[in-house]
């Protein structure tokens, strides 16, 4: 017979749960924590005392006291003291941010990335420099508890190696390892697929808060995504799951960067839209996509036809996802936010024709609440994962 969890395991679990609570929900009164976590007052007090002693949270009197009587103390995360570095490696940009416990972006640096052949040094160099600059500006009593990166490519769960990234031109890049070496903070760098992390970010802090079954679609140059099922990210056997952009929707269709034909990405990605609008070449990126949506809005019939075509394929892709996963919500992020808003009549018409009626009846279609920061916010959450799992142990290690 297996023994139940030890006292120590239960305590660790509860410490993590409490810290996660104030990290995600912000300052919370002891009374509220008691009822939300289903623990008694004295346990909450003991847990809070431990986290306070470790410098992870602080207890304060609430700012405004609405009611009479003794106000319950508010537990707030030590946002200025405990932080992570979040990195975002996109096709067109590199971002590094220092994010405090609780999710506030304390500092941030960004640069444009040239499209072209992949060079590890050209990615790691600027990000390491950004992190160093931000690190120098921190007060001595601050502590970094994790580093994580969102990478536009397929990341192996086992070793954090970026196995493929057709739009970055990268194959088998040991990005995490190299990044950790250059940062020299004594911390590993966890790496995740950018769209997977953005999905998690929308689930934890964006439009999908409280929604346990969600499909997120991310439009960059390519189309990525993430599937949240029962509150957890669906990674698959090796972590490559959720590549919704490589779902084949049109076998006779356009060639995809992955070598296949008619992938969702090939039919609705940036290039597909710009080519259909007769605008490929002159301008690329988000601005070019916005220009097509604007032109369509002003009555340009070529731009309208392009959006309508792309919207139709997007609707077909979403219909497949809805039939397979029965999500409560589908979120459009990156440039797909603009594409969805500019072609929603087409997207939903196709969806209404092709998705099973019970699955689409209560489906909510939403645009990202985190915007272009979704991937970065997701990286920050990945970086916080360790300290939220075992607060005292991680803090002891980081502080030493």
């Amino acid at each position, binding site marked *: 017979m297996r023994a139940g969890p030890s006292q120590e395991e239960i305590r660790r679990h509860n410490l993590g749960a409490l810290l996660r609570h104030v990290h995600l929900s912000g300052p919370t009164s002891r009374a509220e924590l008691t009822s939300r976590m289903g623990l008694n007052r004295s346990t909450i007090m003991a847990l809070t005392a431990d986290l306070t002693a470790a410098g992870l949270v602080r207890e304060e009197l609430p700012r405004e006291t609405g009611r009479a009587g003794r106000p319950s103390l508010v537990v707030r995360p030590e946002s200025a003291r405990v932080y992570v570095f979040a990195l975002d490696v996109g096709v067109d940009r590199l971002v590094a941010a220092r994010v405090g416990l609780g999710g506030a972006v304390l500092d941030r640096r960004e640069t444009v990335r040239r499209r072209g052949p992949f060079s590890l040094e050209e990615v790691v160099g600027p990000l390491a420099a950004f992190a160093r600059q931000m690190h120098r500006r921190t007060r001595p009593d601050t502590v970094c508890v994790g580093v994580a990166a969102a990478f536009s490519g397929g990341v192996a769960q086992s070793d954090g190696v970026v196995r493929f990234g057709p739009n970055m031109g990268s194959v088998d890049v040991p990005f995490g390892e190299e990044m950790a070496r250059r940062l020299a903070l004594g911390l590993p760098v966890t790496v995740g697929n950018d769209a997977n992390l953005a999905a998690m970010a929308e689930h934890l802090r964006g439009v999908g808060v409280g929604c346990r079954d969600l499909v997120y679609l991310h439009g960059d140059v390519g189309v990525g995504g993430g599937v949240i099922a029962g509150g957890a990210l669906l990674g698959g056997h090796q972590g490559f799951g959720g590549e919704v952009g490589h779902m084949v929707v049109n076998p006779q269709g356009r060639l995809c960067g992955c070598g296949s034909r008619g992938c969702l990405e090939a039919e609705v990605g940036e290039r597909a839209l710009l080519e259909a609008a007769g605008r490929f070449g002159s301008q690329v990126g988000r601005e070019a996509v*916005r220009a097509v*949506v*604007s032109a369509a*809005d002003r009555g340009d019939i070529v731009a309208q036809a392009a959006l309508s075509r792309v919207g139709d394929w997007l609707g077909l892709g979403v219909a497949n996802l809805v039939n397979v996963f029965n999500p409560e919500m589908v979120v459009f992020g990156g440039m797909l*936010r*603009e594409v*969805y*808003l*500019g*072609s*929603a*009549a*087409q*997207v*939903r*018409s196709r*969806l*209404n*024709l092709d998705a099973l009626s019970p699955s*689409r*009846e209560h*489906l909510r*279609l*939403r*645009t990202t*609440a985190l915007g272009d920061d979704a991937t970065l916010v997701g990286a920050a959450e990945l970086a916080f994962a360790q300290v939220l799992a075992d607060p005292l142990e991680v803090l002891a290690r980081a502080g030493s």
Partner: protein
Amino acid sequence: MTPVLELRGIDKSFGPVQVLHDVAFSVYPGEVTALVGDNGAGKSTLVKCVGGIHPIDSGEYLFEGKPVQVGSPRDAAGLGIEIVYQDLALCDNLDIVQNMFLGREHKRGIVLDEDTMEEMAARTLESLSVRTVKSIRQHVSSLSGGQRQTVAIAKAVLWNSKVVILDEPTAALGVAQTAQVLELVRRLADQGLAVVLISHNMNDVFAVSDRIAALYLGRMAAQVKTSDVTHAQVVELITSGRSGDLGLTNGVPA
């Protein structure tokens, strides 16, 4: 689900001209209902009947399931119905806070001080995730079209309304501002309000609505769920009052 607002058999004439014929219209909490129809179909007139600007000639007006008499904008506001009219009424020479409290300074006999008003305005904009205005003490004349819509909508929300009706809020806006207003509309409904959105743009309608109500020559052709119809069907309802099994037969809804 019970509609928060329901109209039945509404007739409305201006002199000899009958503009609304036997119109039924329901809106639900937590949902966006798109009200569509060609120019002159009667959308704004219907909304003005809801808002107590135009008295209805006959028909029933139910709020939260109970029959009510709405004879003035004050009655509508008292029920928690706020309308942002097509020709929206903000005062250019006042700042955002002043606009949001315009005409409401003495509600329930309480005189609000400046600090309280400022805090309430700021909190409302914050709750709607409105981050585009720099200062709430900015004059409305210095705002862009999208920001003006945003302030008008925030004003509607500030008073704990249950129903917010927006008459063509995106008509004069560019793509980027339209996107923000649409997302705001969606957020309002997701916070539990019933929202009515009037628009001629089918992408806007399909992007955020849960239901579509189509008016045709002053008659309600159909009220459908957005998840049950295609763009082509809605266009047919708008232009001919019919689409397959949906719509009017000899002027009577199916």
